[in-house]
């Protein structure tokens, strides 16, 4: 894991790129990796937030697979643990964009969407 973490800065562009790849299974596994990286290597992810947020928001509307939508929402929710000044500028945008996801046709996706959206709404309040 230590080895992996030291290589992450070089891998990041590739990871971000593979999110826009057509392969569903690749999308899914990249999202899972991304999720654990947000928690393990927050400073590296912080540098990519500008490209990550729009990308993840796009994937929350990925109609072909509910798993991809759920995983994207999980990642997006995890982003709220990053340093405040990095993510706060995106608060309004994300909360607005997730209004569609809480109306997803699948209940399990809605559940993730609600969790994620509420975490973003709580940004900037002292309870976190």
């Amino acid at each position, binding site marked *: 894991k230590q080895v992996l973490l030291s290589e992450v800065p070089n891998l990041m562009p590739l990871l971000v790129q593979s999110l826009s790849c057509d392969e569903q299974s690749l999308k899914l596994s990249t999202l899972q990796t991304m999720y654990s990286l947000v928690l393990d290597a927050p400073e590296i992810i912080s540098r990519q937030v500008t490209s990550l947020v729009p990308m993840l928001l796009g994937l929350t509307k990925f109609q072909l*697979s*509910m798993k991809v939508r759920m995983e994207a929402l999980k990642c997006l929710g995890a982003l709220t643990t990053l340093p405040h000044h990095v993510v706060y500028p995106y608060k309004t945008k994300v909360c607005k964009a997730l*209004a569609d996801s*809480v*109306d997803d*046709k*699948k*209940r*399990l996706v*809605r559940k993730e969407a*609600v969790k994620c*959206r*509420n975490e973003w*709404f*709580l940004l900037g*309040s*002292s*309870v*976190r």
Partner: protein
Amino acid sequence: MATTLENANPTIFLQKTEREVLPDEENEDVVDKIDEREVFDLIRSINDPEHPLTLEQLNVVEQSLVEVDDANNYVKVQFTPTIPHCSMATLIGLAIRVQLLRSLPERFKVDINITPGAHASEDAVNKQLADKERVAAALENTHLLEVVNQCLTVRH
């Protein structure tokens, strides 16, 4: 928080278990409707403003008091304050409203009322909670918003 609690020893009720995941919910092609249980799940873990308990544990919200009409975009929630003179009733109602505002699709019209006969100033509270502008104004108040956010934070 007040030094003396209004209702120092509330009755604690059993909590429901997690909703089971049905095979239909994992099938991409089936559309899941928003039902009573789903809306109840959104509000049951809201914290009580004066006790370290959830609204479900205090029986303030119950699934049987939630009404949902997905096709007509209508949700009605009734809640029962623990005591008839509870001064927290408006705050609890506000927390429920904010939670549903953040968690339900915008197409829904949400009505939040006190269970008939459960509170001394029922009409006043109902009126306040139904007034969009007063709710919006209340949320401009940073202190109040903090208290509401505290109620809406999930405890682990």
